[in-house]
């Protein structure tokens, strides 16, 4: 057989034709459909009712409440209530209510594994690519199509390889790699193709860090952000309860030597400095030191992008030794899942953050989605571990949001202005 990319293999398996070529339009069987309270039941239910049909397979659907929880008013309470009633009505067992953000909750309960073809009703669903699954975000109407038929059409993607060689310096992490890539290639650099993160620096990353890369593949404009599974993947998934016999055949899920790529970009992790993106777009990153004059009102550690267990650990590492957020800086921490928060508590990480002055927020999307809870006041300047800083997304249009890694946000909270974390970690 001719050499194939990981994306070709995954899509080929899902559409039943291993020989698919980039550009082919194919119909794929969906192994898993994940949805949340905002784009899921609330939007699907009326259409399913009017079509007079039920979901194709309740066992293949995961529903997570994360956007409107905890409900802050009658409107949001009604939206969450629809989700709770709907899963019962449809016989959906895999329902995670107020347990955290779908992109973290779904894999950490063992629903994802290498080789799968999956969709999610949220743009950051490409997070699943970190596990060697072809997973991507779709809108609610397209999710309705999947819910009814178990199928979806796809243009077989080309692959753009993002190869990172060398070793990340201390205080530099996956978020910095991603802000750098968004800036170098632009928010449409992924051309809605599959991006594959590879090279020694990627293989050296923990599972949570790989998830950060795949998560922001959508900020690169890619459909999927894949990482070939390896021992790190298998170990993490086994701990998440995936049975060992579902994880044997891993070796096939990689890009063959000589498979045709749209492009291969090589980057050196060893020379990367902590990155910060200026307000407006993740594609406006420079070395953190370029923004040292920016004084802050808020340091926000949250979201699927930036508040997983490893993200909390990174932040705590900077606060260690009794460091506290500067007077006048509001330090907000919204751990990405209840499970990550429990583990962080067991390790003392959570206590370090609380001692630093953190205001602990619910395990939910919170201000990142900008849907109501804890959004930023006019003229606020913030630095955040989240994925997007579009004007007005996290609050008032006059609020300015910088993006950085958990290390950088923690260091900036301590000094009160944007700070290269290596100044404090040294």
């Amino acid at each position: 057989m001719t050499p194939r990319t990981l994306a070709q293999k995954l899509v080929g398996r899902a559409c039943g034709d291993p020989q698919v070529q980039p550009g082919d339009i194919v119909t794929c069987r969906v192994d898993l459909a994940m949805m949340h309270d905002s784009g899921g039941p609330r939007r699907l239910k009326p259409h399913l009712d009017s079509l007079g049909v039920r979901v194709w397979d309740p066992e293949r659907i995961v529903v997570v409440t994360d956007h409107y929880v905890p409900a802050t008013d009658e409107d949001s309470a009604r939206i969450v209530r629809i989700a709770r009633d709907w899963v019962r009505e449809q016989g959906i067992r895999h329902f995670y209510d107020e347990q955290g953000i779908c992109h973290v909750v779904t894999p950490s309960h063992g629903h994802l594994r290498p080789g799968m073809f999956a969709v999610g009703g949220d743009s950051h669903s490409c997070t699943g690519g970190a596990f060697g699954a072809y997973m991507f975000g779709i809108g609610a109407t397209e999710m309705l199509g999947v819910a009814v038929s178990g199928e979806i059409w796809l243009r077989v993607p080309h692959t753009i390889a993002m190869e990172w060689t060398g070793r990340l310096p201390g205080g530099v992490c996956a978020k910095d790699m991603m802000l750098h890539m968004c800036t170098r290639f632009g928010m449409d650099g992924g051309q809605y193709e599959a991006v594959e993160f590879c090279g020694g620096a990627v293989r050296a990353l923990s599972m949570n860090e790989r998830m950060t890369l795949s998560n922001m593949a959508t900020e690169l404009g890619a459909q999927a952000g894949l990482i070939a599974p390896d021992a790190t993947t298998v170990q993490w998934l086994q701990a998440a309860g995936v049975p060992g016999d579902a994880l044997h055949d891993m070796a096939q899920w990689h890009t063959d030597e000589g498979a045709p790529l749209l492009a291969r970009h090589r980057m050196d992790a060893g020379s990367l400095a902590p990155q910060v993106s200026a307000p407006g777009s993740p594609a406006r990153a420079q070395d953190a030191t370029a923004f040292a004059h920016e004084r802050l009102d808020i340091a926000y550690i949250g979201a699927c992008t930036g508040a997983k267990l490893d993200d909390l650990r990174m932040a705590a590492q900077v606060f260690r030794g009794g460091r506290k957020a500067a007077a006048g800086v509001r330090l907000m921490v919204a751990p990405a899942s209840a499970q990550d928060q429990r583990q962080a508590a067991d390790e003392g990480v959570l206590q370090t953050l609380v001692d630093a002055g953190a205001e602990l927020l619910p395990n939910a999307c919170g201000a990142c989605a900008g849907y109501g809870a804890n959004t930023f006041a006019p003229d606020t300047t913030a630095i955040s571990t989240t994925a997007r800083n579009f004007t007005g997304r996290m609050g008032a249009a006059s609020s300015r949001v910088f993006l950085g890694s958990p290390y950088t946000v923690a260091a900036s909270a301590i000094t009160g202005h944007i700070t290269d974390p290596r100044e404090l970690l040294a």
Partner: protein
Amino acid sequence: MSTTDAPGRCWVFGDDINTDYLAPGKYMKYGIDAIAQHCLEDVEPRFAREVRAGDLIIAGRNFGAGSSREQAVEVLRHLGVRCVVARSFAGLFYRNGFNLGLPLLQGPAATEAPAWGIAPGAPACLDLEQARLQLPDTQQALQCQPIPPHLLALVTDGGLVPHLRKRIARERLHSAASNP
């Protein structure tokens, strides 16, 4: 045979018009009518008040970047926007557009002029099947990339929901015929 619509007015925007501009998060808990009143308010406050049925949007690169929220498409449909012509679209938004029956055209990449020189407010007639925009003021025609056949079929049906309704009715008819 191709059909050309009555002229609509062109609203001209730049690059990276994102979903948070189109459907701001803080209004996402409401129905489409409420969200539509705030469509693009952080970019062009006049838009939601003054846009009329049949108007078109002309935009730059990466239109619809960001979220999967399809209210970003739905508001445009709700406000009567006939079509969006952009230099490129974010992939997720592109799929959502056709699923909700909003035609999207990718304009020619070769012309460097912003918005292909189309003036804000200029009248334009759309020929969707030919993927062409006629601009009577300047006698200009903008030839866009043709819409792939499976997406043209979807948008002609009015989007995925009417398309599914047809498919389900067909399947029911078929199973009734085979199980008399």
